[in-house]
């Protein structure tokens, strides 16, 4: 088995005395992964991202299937010449923008602080 641990890359930038980082060791990763802070962070991330992904994919698929097999329903006018299909299509734009906003708010409030604390701990500048 030939493992090249890490490809050499650009030389690391000169360490700034205030934010000098150290490379975490295997035990550090293991310890953090088992910590309550990390499992909490992972849970908060997945509980938002996974169901939301399922939801928007299903909603998109529903829209695609309706457009393909329920042509008459989609062509039914609702507002002047705007029909069900165009309204639902514009609804896809709305839900995409809405979900983006919700996720950014969730991440800023519930994910970033915990991630920053764990990162500081791992890089040894807490």
């Amino acid at each position, binding site marked *: 088995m030939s493992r090249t641990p890490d*490809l050499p890359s650009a030389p690391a930038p000169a360490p700034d005395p205030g934010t000098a980082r150290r490379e975490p060791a295997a035990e550090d990763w293991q310890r953090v992964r088992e910590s309550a802070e990390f499992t909490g962070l992972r849970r908060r991330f997945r509980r938002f991202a996974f169901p939301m992904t399922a939801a*928007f994919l299903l909603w998109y698929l529903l829209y695609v299937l309706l*457009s393909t097999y329920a042509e008459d329903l989609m062509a039914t006018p609702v507002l002047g010449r705007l029909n069900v299909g165009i309204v639902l299509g514009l609804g896809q*734009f709305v839900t995409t923008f809405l*979900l983006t906003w919700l996720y950014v708010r969730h991440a800023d409030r519930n994910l970033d602080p915990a991630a920053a604390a764990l990162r500081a701990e791992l890089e040894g500048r807490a």
Partner: protein
Amino acid sequence: MDVGNPLVNILIFGAFVVVTLVVVVRVSRGPRQAGDFYHGGRAFTGRQNGIAIAGDYLSAASFLGIAGAVAVYGYDGLLYSIGFLVAWLVALLLVAEPLRNTGKYTMADVLSFRMRQRPVRTAAAVSTLAVSFFYLLAQMAGAGGLVALLLGVQDQLGQSLVIAVVGALMIVYVLVGGMKGTTWVQIIKAVLLIVGAGLMTVWVLVLNNGNLSSLLDRAARDHPEGDRILGPMLQYGASDASKLGFISLAIALVLGAAGLPHVLMRFYTVPSAREARRSVTWAIGLIGAFYLFTLILGFGAAYLVGVDEILAAPGGANSAAPALAYELGGTLLLGVIAAVAFATILAVVAGLTITAAASFAHDVYNGVIKRGTASPEREVRVARITAVVVGLVSIVGGVLANGQNVAFLVSLAFAIAASANLPSILFSLYWRRFSTRGCVWSIYGGLLSALVLIAFSPVVTGSETAMFPGLDVAWFPLANPALVSVPVGFLLGWLGTVTSDDADQARATEMEVRSLTGAGAER
């Protein structure tokens, strides 16, 4: 159809080239490290990168293609743009941030993080090059049609010459500016494109007193298909196979964006996961707004220019947006939109070239051939040489593919990205057991099944509109392979994993913690 004054078009495009070249030269001054060629120093803000992503993503195919599809097919054109937009939620929720946290330059960095390096890097490079090649071909093929339309160059030789000039310019951008220069070209282009399209949108809306219903009414009244353009399946509804082909296309679009290597590489140009998130947020806002514009522009072109008029123009449906520009603002606005369309091709091709060059130099040359021992300087030199080779290949490919259906080539790139790249990316980020065999099977399986199904689809042979109309070896009825090849990619990833056991527990733990916290990621 009158297409304005070719001289004005060339002058405005020339001005764009001069301005962007100055910018590229300016930003590429100063001390540079080897990695800068790939990620531009990781110094872009989320907003800058988000605008650049929009610049990368809003290719000529989506600008000219979607506006044209809306003008000719109405509602079905909207379906296209919705898939392209919703796809970004996959990138936002599942891919952008962990990718930024675990990789360095290329998609393979993430995939190979806890796997055996050589097989995984080879597979990832092969699919990166395949996706980039089809995407490149689409852009360059579009350039030929655009030349015909906007510069009045009708003969093959003249068009080939212009394609060569576009390719040569692109090589200069990439060599001089690297990722930093290319990013700035994309930012400038995105702003021009969105402002230009926004202006025309407002114009069309004002002509309709801001009433969407009246716009639709006028578009349908003058359209040869009448009210049918307001409902679905004018373009895809011919048969059961074409309907299923559309569903397949929809799957490719929604799952493909987060697997496009040139998009993934853009997430490395920002300093943190938070900025990667900001990038996607900006990209979603801009891309979404732009697709709403194209909807208005398409319906506007349908009645202001006329569908028969559009289809009769050189470039066919692709000429809807330029023709509308001419109708609204005369020679000058057409010149601006024409220049922006050219700039689009230039910028997208430059981004693709850097991606292909990085993948070859970093993954194949250094990772596989040199087993990670090549110096960064040497690796970047190889990347630069690769960029020139890719540029030349794309010129030749563009000349040969001139006249091919641009939208089809792009949907092909999306199908391969969704089948070969996305399954392995998601598995490696979220499935701890995922193994080297699973990764390699998933990539090759997705890639090969997509390519084989395309080769034997009615798009390539066996129909009047096929690439080779005289030949008939088609047995796969759908125009897009994703409905089959995406499940194949996921299934093989699972099968390869459960039949092997080489998971590196320590690296898996490290990757999991890195992906969520960003610890140890290069800034």
